[in-house]
């Protein structure tokens, strides 16, 4: 078990090798969260990168009261939320980025297939869902985080979380019903 507080202390002195350890340990977790929210590999990669860059610039503000995982989740969620809101405004741009998904080529076909499958499901069932509902649904039902943790990450109250979750589940259930009818 690594002592991340020690690693953070080293990062604060400008030790980039220490930060590399954090990136290597958490990049997969952050990428997984981002792709589950965004439903797009390219967007998820961008958000993962931006999350770590923001973490580096704000490393002095990190307090050991919350875990490093939660802190990074919070940064990533904020990035996803902003991006989702931006995408909602520029739907045309989102369509372009979707088309990039199919142009991408990777050596590991299995990995690419699973990423694509996940993106397809996420896009199919959560497309057009309001950003906060999407966050609540992903963090609670898919990531399996506790309500307290989600409130800490997203900055919303328990009541707001409950209502967002209720509408998100209703949204997906409606989509499932529509699929059945078709």
């Amino acid at each position: 078990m690594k002592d991340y507080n020690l690693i953070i202390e080293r990062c604060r002195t400008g030790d980039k090798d220490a930060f590399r350890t954090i990136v290597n340990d958490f990049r997969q977790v952050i990428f997984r969260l981002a792709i589950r929210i965004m439903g797009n590999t390219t967007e998820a990669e961008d958000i993962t990168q931006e999350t770590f860059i923001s973490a580096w610039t704000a490393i002095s503000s990190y307090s050991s009261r919350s875990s490093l995982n939660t802190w990074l989740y919070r940064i990533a969620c904020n990035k996803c939320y902003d991006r989702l809101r931006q995408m909602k405004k520029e739907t045309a741009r989102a369509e372009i980025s979707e088309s990039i998904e199919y142009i991408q080529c990777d050596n590991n076909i299995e990995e690419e297939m699973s990423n694509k499958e996940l993106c397809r499901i996420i896009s199919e069932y959560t497309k057009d869902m309001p950003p906060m509902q999407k966050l609540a649904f992903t963090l609670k039902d898919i990531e399996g985080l506790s309500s307290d943790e989600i409130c800490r990450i997203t900055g919303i109250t328990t009541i707001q979380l409950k209502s967002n979750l209720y509408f998100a589940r209703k949204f997906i259930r409606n989509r499932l019903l529509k699929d059945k009818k078709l």
Partner: protein
Amino acid sequence: MNRNNDEYNKLISRIRSINPSIPDGEGMTNKIMSSINSIDLNKKGNKYILWIRIISGMAACLVASVMIAGIYGDNVRNDYYHNMIPETINIKTECSTGNMLETYRCFIRENNIGHADNMKRYIEHYK
């Protein structure tokens, strides 16, 4: 409803079962590291520069507002001297056109008179 719940749970477990992976993990780490290389955390001078920028910006705004106020004030004063005829002055002779303000303006323009003695000379002229 229960059937719908089953479908929902199936979907969730299907999403959970797929473990996405970064296409090029090492490449991403390198990109992040090269991006943060240009960011220097120990740049404490940044704060001072920021404060200097804020203060100089405020000073520039202040100077600009003083200048604007000065120009505007001059215009207001000029307008007052050129256009206003105090009501207290009793002009005995009426000008030929009947428009006192226009006559007054013409008089000032023709005689190229400054502000202070305008009214006196004007009254003297038409007495």
